[in-house]
């Protein structure tokens, strides 16, 4: 078992087989630096619980393929990323820091899917961004690639 500590001083025990999906922790264990608790100063307990949930589900990915649990895993992933933007960004930052490649890919893909075909206005509203570009700057970018701003696929709804 490996002990992880979040930045709000909560400790979690995780199986080594699960936690080594994080390249960072795997390297620490290999280098013998994981003898006691591993402090994770960038990750709060709420996010760490999500990450551990993912790691536990994804132990022995190879086995899933053999036993036909792939669909189950796919369904889990779909449910897993069903979270708000803030939470999703927290998990992305944690996955980036811990270097968990599959989790990073899953969450970035989900964020990308939410941005796909969205209008500029919709993106601003979804992410609560105030426009800080001048009208001229904005027009200049649009003139560079007008094809990116027209067409029936552009979606102005916010979700």
């Amino acid at each position: 078992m490996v002990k992880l500590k979040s930045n709000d001083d909560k400790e979690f025990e995780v199986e080594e087989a699960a936690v080594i999906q994080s390249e960072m922790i795997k390297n620490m264990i290999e280098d013998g630096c994981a003898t006691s608790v591993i402090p994770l100063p960038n990750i709060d307990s709420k996010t760490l619980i999500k990450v551990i949930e993912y790691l536990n589900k994804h132990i022995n990915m190879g086995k899933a393929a053999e036993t036909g649990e792939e669909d189950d895993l796919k369904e889990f992933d779909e449910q897993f990323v069903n979270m708000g933007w803030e939470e999703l960004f927290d998990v992305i930052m944690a996955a980036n820091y811990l270097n968990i490649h599959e989790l990073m890919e899953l969450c970035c893909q989900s964020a990308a899917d939410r941005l796909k075909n969205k209008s500029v206005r919709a993106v601003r509203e979804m992410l609560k961004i105030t426009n800080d570009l001048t009208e001229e700057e904005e027009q200049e970018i649009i003139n560079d690639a007008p094809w990116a701003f027209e067409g029936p696929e552009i979606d102005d709804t916010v979700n």
Partner: protein
Amino acid sequence: MENENPNILSLLPEDCTEKVLVFTSPVDVCRVSVVSKSLQSAADSDSVWEKFLPSDYQSIISASLTPIPDFGSKKDLFPEVVKLRRVWWLEIRGTIRVGVLSPRTSYVAYIVYKLKNDHGFHFRPSEVSVGVCGVELDTQFAFLVPKGRQYHPYKSIYRMSSATEDELEQLDDDNEEAVYIYFPCPYGRGPLLPVRASNLVQSNIRRRQLRDDGWFEIELGEFYTENEDDCIEMSLKEVNDCLSPKDGLIVEGIEIRPRMG
């Protein structure tokens, strides 16, 4: 505290924002860059655009016969497509060394294109071929524009002498599926030149497919990677009909994919 900084994206460091953008598409990234200054900076970054370029883009640039205009960033490299100005003879040719592909695999080459205010492609099949350089190529026919009706040698002679292209087009509007081949004579009203007509009747004529990304593709042919020093030549040409100018073809490139199944 949270209300002071409602911008959710500002929580995310720029390198993570870039990693998200890589999973969208070039069109999405261009649009997102108008959202705000910080998104513009992430959306213009080389690390994003490098992922949208072919992985071997550096060797493509160094091998280019025509110099690529100055590019300040990887984004500038992206919109390098070719639009055909009015021409009479059309010939597009690409070569690739077998060594850069997987060994002993069947590959299919496709030309990826769009048409804008196109002219001169109706009823005229292009010759497409793929094969090892220096070895005689197996030529097939393909329609860049699908309109036309079933090829029939006698009928086509009749049509050529009596109908204009506009009239033919009218006829074919309700018959999108049919194929018709129109071979005008290069010497005005002189003798007909049904160029390789026998070849044409037997061969199945390639049709274009609409891709998910909005471009059309047509199969040029297939090849098998055997000898890694071989050079594969892929081409599309339409040089029989030198009377009608061709215009409005936008070529993204030639795509090579392993044959499925």
